[in-house]
Structures are given as structure tokens and as C-alpha cells.
């Protein structure tokens, strides 16, 4: 516990300490515009970088850029964009400088394949974000979305066994974390603890977590934050290129193959395209002393994109399909509370198993289909107008263990099926900067229909929601100020079957969301961001109408049709220091949620013929979450780098004066990275050792769990990576050993902590091969 307070104190002292530091007197501004030499039109997303100050900007849709807070003197400026020749020049900065019409020409002798063309400006800059990209993303290939994002400070996972994992931001998950998949709100049955996001991480080359109440831009539900998974940008340069990823794991004998091919046709057909697919298969997971029966999974995903890009218009169609079949650990299927208590008392699961790829009941089969069309028109006087149309279809089937063994053999008929169809349309205008005010204004619409079959979990429903928002940013030299406001209205029609009669129960919810934020550039190496936001969340259908037994949890969950929406306030303040040697990001957050919906244990057991089960009812309280995230990377020498990550979340039930259940314990992980500089042939080589420490969670409500939270644990990971060149062919290799010492441990954030130890030692080999088939010179 000492660590927890030290950590908190550290941030508490550091953040204001830096605020009071005297900023230097650098306030010159460099601004200008960049044109595309090919078309003569404004160049969007070109990068402008000042070498001396390691500071840059990217151009907006009108080709304009502005870099503030520059110190006086000579500056070297590099203008660049992928696929274009970079252009370097220097200026003498005495006061503000405006540079007109820098022209970038296409690069004719480009060697490496180009897959990315610049970075879109952040819509709300005052939010604290963390991104997984480049090498850091490569290190997580083959993992699920949730497990990959766990690499980011402040993000943990809520797991159900080994195959189902959901991202948790600052202690919250499911309906309080919005997942933005290709610009659309991911609409599956995300309310369920054992319903993982249906996304193939290979689609993306950058996954971002926004930590803050981001409801203004992304709509209700973004109470704790947003996970943004954006597909790679389509190539701008004529040619055909690709990438191949291979992942192999020893523990569950997982094999993953993911490939993509993309290109742009020549002048005769101005279309860009991409095909992408991933296949994965894994068998039973091995805990240090035994195999976990029925824990394999199979995944088959594919996506394609077609884009059309002209100077005044661009359009892109993105289609993706995600299909997974995942086994649920057999030892977690129990008939009653006494079975559960028996399972907890046993040190090993009763179900014995060897290794197998076979998936038996209980298992889930989930399909998610997403189509997105994105159109942008660049209107000279107004700005850029963006239309986003989306359709998602989620088909979830759950196959239970049946009393009837013959039916149990069949893998055909699911006991529960939920089909959710979502249509959405967003129209957003990013208006041209007016003096130093820039921003966007938009409207959103979404329509949903849900139907169920099999055993009852949630009723059929239809919903429609409308919203409108405005977000503006004032650039005031050293400080940028932001403010946004949004209004949403949601109509929810429930079709509840009451003993054969279908009743229509109409609900409607509406509310405002707001945000204010500031980015303060203290000095060239220090940045301070603060954002305060309010957002809300209407109660979900399961919270209103859930009624029934959850196997595995041995609990009856009962909804409350009178629940009110949750109203959240969240403040996040963070400090970023970037110098040659030190890279530090430290943030504090405080969040208060009114009418926080949670499952409160009822005191009486529900008696059924199948035994007595504890029941839980969805109840509203006021809750408080606060804590701190830390990321620090320090370069000790040219070849040795120290990295520290940590997350602290404290949660309290204000109404009942207690703690909340399922809050991640304190986690921190120091790592050391060694890069041998003397091997020229294997560039980008490194060795990395990581220690992962997870403390015991003792802040739990009394009498609300079947077993005490598991003990603290320490794991060691070792890793080596390199980029090899075979002639002109580059091959990136990463070799990892997780849980090096094969430690048997259980994790509080795994719902199967009652039944089994976590995965034992695991060796992973990742190979990435960029493929260049044809490039126009």
C-alpha cells in the first residue's frame, strides 16, 4: 500500500510543481501554407517540423499550419509528407513569420513502401491520450484488442478466462467505455462482461485510448474514455504493396496469420484499395500445473477498403467482418453456489484435460459485420464537410452445456442468440479557422434493432438516437482553450414478452454533454493538458430488463425498469515532458458518477428446483473514481533505456460508504531496454526485460464476493527483437517469453479467478514482412 500513496503523492507534487515553474520567453509564431506540387491545391496532412525545437505541426484541410511559442533565432524547418520529397529551409525568427506557398513534389525515387500518409489533427486536444503504434503495436500482434491495449498506462482488462478480454479505462468498462471502430461506435452486445469487442487489431496501425469524459464528440457512454481503432489509411501512391504477419505461441499453441495487400491504380483509374485478412487458431491454455479444458478459440476476419481521392472530394468504403468461436473453460460451468464453493476450495479444477484444439460446450460464436462509407468535400470558403454512414450487424450465439448429453454433442443449436442491427449517419463540418478559432460542428443519428432467441436474457428493442454538437478551439499563443457542447436524445422501445403477450414499453432519454479544456505549453519540453467533461449514459436494456440465471457466475441478475441515466463528471490533468533523455507522461484523474448503476447483491437466496442462487439487482448509487497513470522513459545511455508504467485507480461507493467491486488493483511495470549499437546489419535490435507487478486488491465491498481477491503477484517477461535485411527485403522479428518463471497466479480482474490459475510460461514469435510488389517510379 505504501507504493500506492507514494505514487499518488508523486503525481500530486509533480503536476502543480511544474505549473509554477517559470516559462521562458519564447513566443514567436511560424505560420504558412503548403501546396501539392502535383495538383497545385492545398496540401492536407503535410508535416512541418522545426529541428531546433523538435516541434512540429501538420497542415489542415486548407494547407495551413501554425507553430506557436518559438524562441527567437535561426530555425531549420523541414516540410514533408510520405510519398513526397521533403523540403528543408531555414528562417531567422525575430517575431512572427508567415511563409506562403511551400510546394511539395512527389518523390520519384522512393524505396520503402508507403502505407501511411500523415496524422489527422486531434479533435479535442486537451484529452489525455495514449496510443499503441509502430513497434509497440507490433509487440502485441496476435493478442486480442483488450490484451493489446493493456500495454497503455491507465488501461487494464476485464477477462473471462483467457479468450475473452475487455478494455478497462480508469476502472470502468463495457458500456462506460466507447469503442470507435473505423469511426463508428462499435455496437455489439457490449454490456456483457463476457462479451469482448469484436475487432481485429490487425486492421489498424494505430490504436488510441482517450482518457476522459469524451461524450461531446463521441456521444453518450464515453464516461471513462474512448478506444479508437482506425483502419490504416489507404496508400496515396500508385503501386501494390502488402504486409504479412505471422504469430506463433507455445502455451496454447496459437497460430495467427494476417496479411494485407493494398495499392492505388494508375491515372486511368483513380482508386485506392486494400484487402486484409486474419486467421487465428488456439488450443487449451496451460496454467503452470494443468491445462484449462476447452479454452481454445478460432478467429477468421477479413476487411476491404476502396477509396477515391480528388482535390475537392474524397470517399472511402470500408467493410469488415469478424468471426470468432471461443471455448469457455469447462471448469467454470457450475450448477449452483455449493458447486462454486467446492470449486473455490479445490486448488485445481475438477475437469482434467490435456492439450486439444477442440471447442466444446460451453462456447460462444460471434459474428460482427461493419460497413462504413466516408465522404469528405473540401469547400474553399467553409471548410471540410464529412459524412459518415455506417451499418453494423452483430450476431451472438451462446452454446450452453446441456443436461441432455446427446444434444450436448451437437454444436448446431445455440441456447441464446442475440442479433443487433445498427445504422448510423454522422455529418460533421470542420470549419475553416476564423481568426484563431477552429473547430467542428456536427449532427449524428443512430438506429438500432435487437432480437433474441433461446433463453431469455434481454428483450427485443428498437432505438433511435439524435444528437448535435459543437467543439471550438481558441489558439492563444502558449495556451489553447477548448470548449464543446452536445445534446442527445434517445428513444428506446422495448418489446417485452409477458406470458405470451408482447407489451410495448417506450422510454426516452435526453441530456447535454459538455467539455472545457486547455493545453498549456509551459516550455518547449513541457506540456500541460487539462480537461473537464460531463457526459451521460442512458441505462442499458440489460440493466432495465435482465432476468435470469448466469451460468459460470451462479447468479441471478435482475433488472430495474425504473433506472435513471447515469451522469458523469470527469477531470483529467496531465503533464508531458519530452526532452532528449526523458519522456514523461503523468496524469491525475477524478471522476464522479451520479446514479451509477451496479449489481447489488440481494441478501436472500432465490430458491429454484435447480438449487438456491444468490440474486443481484441493478441498483443506482453515487460513485467516485480517482487515481493516477504514469509513463516514464529515461535514456540512461545511448544503448540503455529505462521504462516505467503504472496505474492506480481508487473507487468508492459514496451512497453506501464503501468500496466498489471489480476495480483493478494497483499495477506497475518497470522495464529495461538494451539496444546494441555495434551490430550494423541487424538494425533496430533490442533486448527487453519487464517486471509486471500487480498488487492485491483489498479495497473491496464486504460480503459481496465468493472468495477473497487473489494475492499480489510478480511476473517477468523477456523479449528480443530485430529487423533483418535479406537483400532488399526487410523482416522484423520479435521473440517474447511471458511469465518467464512459470508462476502460478490468479488475477482479480479475471472472472474465472475462482476456478483456475492464469496462463503459465508462454513463448511468442512474431514475424512481420513488408511486401513490395509494384511501385510506380
Amino acid at each position, binding site marked *: 500500500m505504501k507504493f500506492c500513496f507514494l505514487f499518488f503523492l508523486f503525481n500530486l507534487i509533480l503536476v502543480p510543481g511544474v505549473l509554477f515553474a517559470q516559462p521562458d520567453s519564447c513566443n514567436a509564431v511560424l505560420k504558412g501554407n503548403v501546396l501539392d506540387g502535383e495538383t497545385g491545391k492545398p496540401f492536407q496532412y503535410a508535416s512541418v517540423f522545426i529541428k531546433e525545437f523538435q516541434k512540429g505541426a501538420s497542415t489542415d484541410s486548407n494547407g495551413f499550419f501554425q507553430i506557436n511559442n518559438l524562441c527567437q533565432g535561426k530555425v531549420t524547418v523541414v516540410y514533408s509528407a510520405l510519398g513526397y520529397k521533403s523540403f528543408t529551409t531555414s528562417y531567422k525568427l525575430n517575431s512572427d513569420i508567415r511563409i506562403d506557398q511551400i510546394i511539395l513534389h512527389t518523390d520519384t525515387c522512393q524505396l520503402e513502401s508507403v502505407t501511411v500518409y500523415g496524422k489527422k489533427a486531434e479533435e479535442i486536444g486537451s484529452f489525455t491520450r495514449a496510443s499503441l503504434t509502430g513497434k509497440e503495436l507490433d509487440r502485441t500482434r496476435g493478442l486480442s484488442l483488450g490484451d493489446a491495449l493493456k500495454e497503455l498506462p491507465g488501461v487494464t482488462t476485464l477477462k473471462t478466462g483467457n479468450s475473452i478480454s475487455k478494455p478497462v479505462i480508469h476502472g470502468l468498462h463495457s458500456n462506460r467505455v466507447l469503442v470507435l471502430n473505423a469511426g463508428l461506435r462499435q455496437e455489439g452486445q457490449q454490456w456483457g462482461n463476457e462479451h469482448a469487442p469484436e475487432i481485429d487489431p490487425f486492421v489498424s496501425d494505430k490504436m488510441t485510448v482517450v482518457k476522459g469524459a469524451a461524450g461531446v464528440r463521441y456521444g453518450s457512454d464515453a464516461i471513462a474514455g474512448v478506444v479508437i481503432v482506425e483502419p490504416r489509411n489507404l496508400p496515396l501512391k500508385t503501386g501494390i504493396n502488402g504486409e504479412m504477419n505471422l504469430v506463433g505461441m507455445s502455451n496454447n499453441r496459437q497460430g495467427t496469420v494476417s496479411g494485407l495487400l493494398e495499392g492505388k491504380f494508375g491515372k486511368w483509374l483513380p482508386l485506392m484499395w486494400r484487402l486484409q485478412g486474419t486467421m487465428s487458431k488456439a488450443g487449451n491454455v496451460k496454467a503452470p500445473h494443468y491445462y484449462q479444458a476447452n479454452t481454445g478459440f478460432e478467429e477468421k476476419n477479413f476487411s476491404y477498403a476502396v477509396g477515391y481521392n480528388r482535390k475537392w472530394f474524397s470517399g472511402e468504403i470500408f467493410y469488415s467482418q469478424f468471426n470468432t468461436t471461443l471455448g469457455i473453460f469447462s471448469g467454470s460451468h457450475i450448477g449452483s453456489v455449493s458447486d462454486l464453493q467446492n470449486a473455490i476450495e479445490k486448488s485445481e479444477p475438477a475437469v482434467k484435460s490435456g492439450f486439444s484444439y477442440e471447442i466444446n460446450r460451453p462456447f460462444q460464436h460471434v459474428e460482427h459485420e461493419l460497413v462504413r462509407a466516408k465522404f469528405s468535400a473540401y469547400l474553399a470558403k467553409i471548410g471540410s464537410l464529412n459524412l459518415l454512414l455506417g451499418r453494423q450487424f452483430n450476431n451472438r450465439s451462446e452454446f450452453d452445456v446441456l443436461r441432455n448429453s446427446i444434444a450436448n454433442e451437437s454444436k448446431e443449436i445455440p441456447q441464446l442468440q442475440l442479433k443487433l442491427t445498427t445504422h448510423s449517419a454522422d455529418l460533421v463540418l470542420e470549419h475553416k479557422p476564423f481568426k484563431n478559432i477552429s473547430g467542428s460542428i456536427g449532427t449524428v443519428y443512430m438506429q438500432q434493432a435487437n432480437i433474441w432467441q433461446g433463453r431469455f436474457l434481454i*428483450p427485443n428493442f*428498437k432505438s433511435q438516437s439524435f444528437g448535435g454538437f459543437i467543439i471550438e478551439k481558441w489558439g492563444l499563443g502558449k495556451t489553447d482553450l477548448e470548449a464543446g457542447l452536445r445534446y442527445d436524445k434517445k428513444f428506446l422501445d422495448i418489446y417485452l414478452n409477458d406470458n405470451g403477450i408482447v407489451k410495448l414499453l417506450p422510454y426516452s432519454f435526453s441530456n447535454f454533454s459538455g467539455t472545457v479544456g486547455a493545453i498549456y505549453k509551459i516550455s518547449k519540453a513541457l506540456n500541460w493538458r487539462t480537461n473537464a467533461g460531463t457526459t451521460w449514459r442512458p441505462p442499458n436494456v440489460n440493466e432495465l430488463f435482465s432476468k435470469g440465471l448466469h451460468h459460470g457466475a451462479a447468479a441471478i441478475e435482475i433488472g430495474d425498469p425504473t433506472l435513471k441515466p447515469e451522469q458523469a463528471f470527469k477531470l483529467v490533468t496531465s503533464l508531458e515532458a519530452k526532452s532528449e533523455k526523458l519522456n514523461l507522461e503523468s496524469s491525475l484523474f477524478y471522476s464522479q458518477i451520479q446514479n451509477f448503476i451496479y449489481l447489488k447483491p440481494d441478501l436472500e437466496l432465490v430458491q429454484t428446483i435447480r438449487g438456491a442462487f444468490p440474486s443481484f439487482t441493478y441498483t443506482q448509487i453515487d460513485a467516485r473514481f480517482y487515481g493516477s497513470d504514469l509513463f516514464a522513459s529515461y535514456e540512461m545511455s545511448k544503448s540503455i533505456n529505462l521504462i516505467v508504467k503504472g496505474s492506480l485507480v481508487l473507487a468508492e461507493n459514496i451512497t453506501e460508504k464503501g468500496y466498489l467491486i471489480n476495480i483493478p488493483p494497483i499495477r506497475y511495470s518497470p522495464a529495461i531496454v538494451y539496444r546494441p549499437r555495434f551490430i550494423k546489419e541487424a538494425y533496430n535490435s533490442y533486448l527487453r526485460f519487464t517486471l509486471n507487478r500487480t498488487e492485491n486488491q483489498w479495497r473491496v465491498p464486504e460480503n459481496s464476493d465468493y472468495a477473497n481477491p487473489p494475492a499480489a503477484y510478480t511476473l517477468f517477461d523477456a523479449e528480443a527483437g530485430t529487423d533483418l535485411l535479406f537483400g532488399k527485403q526487410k523482416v522484423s522479428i520479435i521473440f517474447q517469453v511471458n511469465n518467464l518463471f512459470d508462476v502460478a497466479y490468479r488475477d482479480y480482474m479475471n472472472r474465472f479467478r475462482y476456478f483456475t490459475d492464469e496462463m503459465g510460461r508462454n513463448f511468442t514469435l512474431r514475424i512481420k514482412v513488408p511486401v513490395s510488389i509494384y511501385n510506380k517510379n
Partner: protein
Amino acid sequence: MKQTKHIIFLLAFVAISISGCKKNKATDPTAEQPVNPGAGDEENITRIQLQFIDSANNTISKTFTLRDTDGQGKNPPVADTIKLEVNKTYFVSQSIYDDTKTPLSVVSDEIRKEANFHRFHYSIKGSLIAQTIITDYDTRSPAQPLGLEFKIKSGNAGGNSIFNINLRHFSNGIEKTANPADGEQDILVDFPVRVNN
């Protein structure tokens, strides 16, 4: 000319985008739903019936029923009181039903078919039942008791007792045992018992 070409491509592009949408999936939430929330649950049980036959004269003497019509709902099961005569031996045959299914689901037939994966255990709180002996067996060798058919020997009159039925289910490669804590619980119910002179 160039403009026309671009317009054609634009149209082609929009056509591709529309073709990306599949339709005709049954997604109307107003459509008819399964009859009763409990009905969809294949594990649901609403009725247990015990038929007692007096071993002395082999005539049907008594039937006692336990019902839980709302399944997993908050209403507890309601059981008849098993009323027996002093110091007699009865043959008991157990029938289990899910009344929410059409046609009626006879769970006990299912269990009999799967005798190798099931085992009933009976216990008595109190002294009114002196002995229970299971009389039916599964098809293993050596055969193990199942428990849909059993014998009960009543004790002396006086006081109240509780007769407990516990059905264990062995699947997922768990070996069937005689231990009442092994396997998964399928049924756990209590009947009150009274013995009269």
C-alpha cells in the same frame, strides 16, 4: 471528357459502397418472440412428482408434487408434504417435468436415457424416514445407482422431517462418482415429511 470519367468512377464507387450492405436478415424486434422467457431455457424445471407405492399391497397409494412455476423467478418452489404411514416400505418413482415447453418436456425420461451421467442422492433431516435405497442402475459395468426409482422405509411417527433430493450431473469428462459433492448440481429440493400412525 476528363470530368465525365471521374463522374463515372464516382458512381461506380457509390455502387460498390451500396453493394457492401447485405439485407434480408430477420431483424424485426416487433416480430413474435419466444412464448415465455423461461421456455427458451433448456435447463428449466418446473415440477417434480414423487409416486409412492405401498410395497405391501402394490397399489398406487400417494403422489406428492413440488412446483416452481416461475423457474428462476423470485417465487420459491412449493412442495406438498409427504405423508407416510408408520414403519412401511414404499417404492418411489420420480418424474420431473418442464411445463413451459410444448410438448411437455419430461426431464426424467431424458435423465433415464443418460443414466451414465447422472446420480441422485437422498438425505433426510430428522428421523421420520429410516432408510432410502436406490433400485435402478446405469449401464456401466459395474453398474452404478441412478436414483429415479428407489425404496423408502418410514420411521416412527412424531415431529417433522425434511427429505432432500440432490441430482448430480457428470459431463465434460468428469468421472461419475458416488460423492454427493462431485459433478454439477442439476436439482436440489426439499420436501417436508410427516408420518402418521
